[in-house]
């Protein structure tokens, strides 16, 4: 896992050193890698019979986590909005 983070930090340094060259292709490259990785993840999930059998349960757990996470962050956003809104937000 540290290798993965080291890769990212190296990337940040390289990107910063190359900041005068706009690397526009990098976003397309990232997207392609994400497509490839999700394809591989999908393949791994599909080939794993245990996961396929439990897909419904996993989906329900995922829904609970998504709902609670979204609700929590929305409520906290509302609290922040109450303190920020009066004078400081752009009209």
């Amino acid at each position, binding site marked *: 896992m540290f290798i*993965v983070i080291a*890769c990212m930090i190296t990337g940040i340094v390289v990107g910063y050193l190359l900041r005068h060259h706009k690397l526009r292709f990098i976003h397309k490259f990232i997207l392609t890698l994400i497509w490839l990785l999700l394809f591989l*993840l999908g393949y*791994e999930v599909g080939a794993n019979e*245990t996961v396929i059998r439990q897909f419904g349960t996993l989906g329900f757990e995922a829904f609970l*986590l*998504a709902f609670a996470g979204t609700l929590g*962050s929305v409520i906290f956003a509302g609290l922040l*909005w109450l303190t920020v809104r009066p004078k400081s937000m752009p009209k």
Partner: protein
Amino acid sequence: MKGSLIILSFFATGLLLGIFRFLPHDVLSPNVSFYVLCALMFSVGISIGNDPSSFHQFRTLNPRLIFLPLMTILGTWLGVFAVSFLLKNRTMADCLAVGSGFGYYSLSSILITQCKGIELGTIALLSNIMREVMTLLFAPWMVRYFGKLAPICAGGATTMDNYVPHYCPYFRKGICHCIYLPGVCYGLYRSFSGDILL
């Protein structure tokens, strides 16, 4: 939305090919995804380092909005923490890791699969996709009842790219900019949070 559908279709294609065991077994080797993941993180790093404008944007914002990502993180964790008591077969750390994807399903599911196995990785993928869909569908409702910052917090990490065009009609010009703030913060944060929690 179109981008999300394309990403999903890649997952679905992989899923079908996996179910029918269409590809040779070598493709499944975890090493392949690990190398691709390293390449991905390197590229994500480059895109962060190569764009100094994202750092400049911090200076033009209301200082109190620095709490925006903090509120998202706290709110998400609190919600997910509560649910972790309902899910008997998942530890609290598992749930927090899934929540810490903040809607960034592609990266978080991949990272979690690497660290915690494919089951939690699948939950992370589904859960964070659902979060994105919920945010897209209910953004107007959230603005009405919880204020204009609500969809930004709900959208989490994906607010930076996918959501900007979708959100802007809800905001006046100035606020659109602060969408980038949480986006950039999560960009840095999400990679580390998973690591600490897992």
